[in-house]
């Protein structure tokens, strides 16, 4: 049986919170001594990814009652 759209959405929200919060954000952040930080680029990529997943989820799921 497929997971319900609701469950998928909740999982996506969890993923978004994870991607935008410190543990992961810190990985992509470099101290100034090491050159430019990748943080903004990472944020934009993660952001677009989350939106793409959301778009896929919203436009493909059946009308739920």
């Amino acid at each position, binding site marked *: 049986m497929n997971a319900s759209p*609701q469950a998928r*959405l909740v999982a*996506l*929200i969890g993923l*978004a*919170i994870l991607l*935008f*919060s*410190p543990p992961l*954000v*810190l990985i992509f*952040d*470099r*101290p*100034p001594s090491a*050159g*430019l*930080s990748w*943080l*903004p680029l990472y*944020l*934009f990529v993660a*952001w*677009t990814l*989350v*939106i793409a997943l*959301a*778009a896929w989820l*919203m*436009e493909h799921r059946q009308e739920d*009652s």
Partner: protein
Amino acid sequence: MRTDPIVLTVAFGYLALLFVIAAWGDRRAEQGRSIIGSPTVYTLSIAVYCTAWTFYGSVGRAAEFGPSFLMIYLGPTLAMLMAPMMIRKMVRIASTQRITSIADFISARYGKSSSLGALVAIIALIGITPYIALQLKAITLSHAVLVNYPDAAEFQLQEESFWIDKSFWVALVLAVFIILFGTRHLDASERHEGMVAAIAFESLIKLVAFLTVGVFVVFVLFNGPGDLFRQVANTPELVGALSLEAVPGGAIGWVGTFVLAFLAFLTLPRQFQVLVVENVDERHLRRASWLFPLYLVAINLFVIPIAMAGLLLPVGNSDPDSFVLTLPLSAGIEGIPLLVFIGGLSAATGMVIVETIALSTMVSNQLIMPLLLRSKRLHLSSQGELAGWLLGIRRVAIVMILLLGYLYHALIGDSYSLVTIGLVSFVGAAQFAPAMLIGMYWRGATRAGATLGLLAGFVTWFYTLLLPGFAQSGWLDATFLEQGLLGLEWLRPYALFGLEGFDIYSHSLMWSLLLNIGLLVGISLFTRQSPVEQTQAALFTEAMNPGLQHTSLWRGQTTRGELQSLLSRYLGAGATARILADPHANPADNAPAPPALIARAEQGLSGALGSASARVLINSVVRGEALDLESILSILDTTSQTLEYNRRLEQKSNELARIGEELRAANERLRELDRLKDEFVAMVSHELRTPLTSIRAFAEILRDGQDLPEEKRKHFLEVVVLESQRLSRLIEEILDLARLESGRLTLNPQRLDLVALVRHSVDAVHRLQEDRGVKLEVDLEPDEAMVIGDPDRLEQVIINLLDNGGKFADDDTPRVRLHLARHKQSFRLSVEDNGPGIAPDERERVFEKFHQIKRYSDAGSKARGRPRGSGLGLPISRGIVNHLGGRLWVDDAPTLKGACLVMELPEATEEAAPA
């Protein structure tokens, strides 16, 4: 091109365009061809979130604090992801209860309390006015930068009086716009179609303007993003600008801004207005939940490049908030700055319009109406007069709010940068979140808890953010910032209770929300809800329950006439007729009003006056109470029980359908078996009759022909004996088959050498095959092949296979080849012939009982002395092999190109002792 007349013409021309669009939107709505009924327009209207603060302030924030500005847009992204669950519920509640604003929402949730609604309205007014001021300031500032560049803008500003200040006139034009398009209907819960259309248009303009300046900076001032960031990386003082170190408060500030933006996105009055009140269709949320985040990505794409470019290039004006304007100005371009100015104007006016509508509705419905309703005089007013009053109040409120915003801007605005004021407002609005969100999901939240929580949160916010802001702009003595109130160290506003290391917003958010939520939950656990509160709590928390949609919640009594006079007094005749759905209603009608009608009347009043006032008015004519909690709970229970029954019923019926399907399949199989059995019996009788007939015929000849020559007699007897043998063999086979199929076949499995057995079998048939002219080749690869099997039965199988091969081999040069080889953990014995082979679709059928392959070539005379098979050999062989744990199937013949039957038996392990 930057002269004042041109700039002003363009700016006010743009505002005039807004009027045209709004008027067009309203006209389309009247014709029933709404232009806002699309998820895209809905999304664009939500983009009112991006104000002048985004337009100018994001760049400033990025220049000063690195990537933290992104969190202000990631928070709403998260909120929009939750839209299909959370905002959908808010929309559902708002449309069933005719909610007009966030103050109305919270007041309705906690028992339609007018005091709570008033509190929310006051907090919103105090928290949001600076935000409106900020937009006006942005307009003034951007205009000054545009006109005075390269002179500093600030110098000029101080010289001006308010009638020269452009933002004063813009505010005035906006007031006219809002009065025209924001107060068309008395019912504030109805959509402002024209206004939404204008807002959506403004969102497009600001996006286009920002993208244009972004592309210009990155691709004209620099050679693409690579070039820009290489230069940034080579500038030592800018290297750290993009890292988390530039974010105030570090990781905590990061998370704090994230949470703050998430909450504020849901609770800012203008966001509530466009998200919930102006929503025309719940389904639009689905598209908006990803399209709006996409809009945010687009409008933020060039913020960092512009900020970095502004820091790299000498632009003549050091204020980062103006980089968007000064960068193209410094390049000597004239058109783009004007477009940017219009973009900023659109961002600012969009916010001011929606925010003012939301605030004015709150002020009129939550603050002024309840007061007016208490004064006795108003109840005497004549028919329809109050409708005019209400709109008048709202219009005055609009002017007052804009004036307040302008005053704030003129008096205090200079001391703050754009972003600072914005975040202060965010924290203020976030105070509504606990009462609203917890109230939507926890039925136990009480009015006392919500009120005290809100008050505590508001006071904390006021003390830790707003008051220090006043102090910093010189209104107050700033010493308490350093030393705490009354010299108490632990009361320092930016380090309450000695908590340091936070940025001021996270600090304020943390303390205010802690107190807010703590009091809301704590007090709720120890207070009781009034009956109305219980009802409303149930209605809010169970809003998605389908059982509630068509239920009428009134059981009080009144007459149609009384309702009619109440409605017409407050809403006017037209609206009354619409609500009552009866143009001929008259005040003398004494027929009892049905509950549904009372509910409709209350909703109609709620839409215009707010739920608290509507409740007071309805109570004044209806005797008896609204539906109490028990009834609602019983409705809910019944509904959920019904749902549960339905679910179970559906399960049961699915199960039944499945069982029915199984039964049908079983029946099918039984029929098939029955048919096979009939066929079998027919076959058996036929097979038995053939030898019997010949035996009987020859026996009769022998009986009647006494004078037959001895030789003939002997031959006939020979035939009788042969046929009897055939008959008994057939019967033996049938018995075997019967035993096999009923599982009563007794095998005597033992460890044996298949090689030896094959040799033995080959010897047994060798003579017979030679007689028939069949050339038999034997190829045994292994020297020894130990398997478990019944020697007699296995020999029967092998002989049968060889026999078959001989029968079906080529007519002229018949050849049969037996091959034994090891295959993984088993042995494969294959018998192939050079006959015509077996068609692929026949391959399984040869194992059916009495199935005989038709040989087209010798259908007629070519008997060649081969015995006809009974058609039982292969089924019996397969049964035996299966019993022994092996397999028997038809395969492609590898060498002789005819039919090939393969028997596979597992290898016997050493331990497998013979039984």
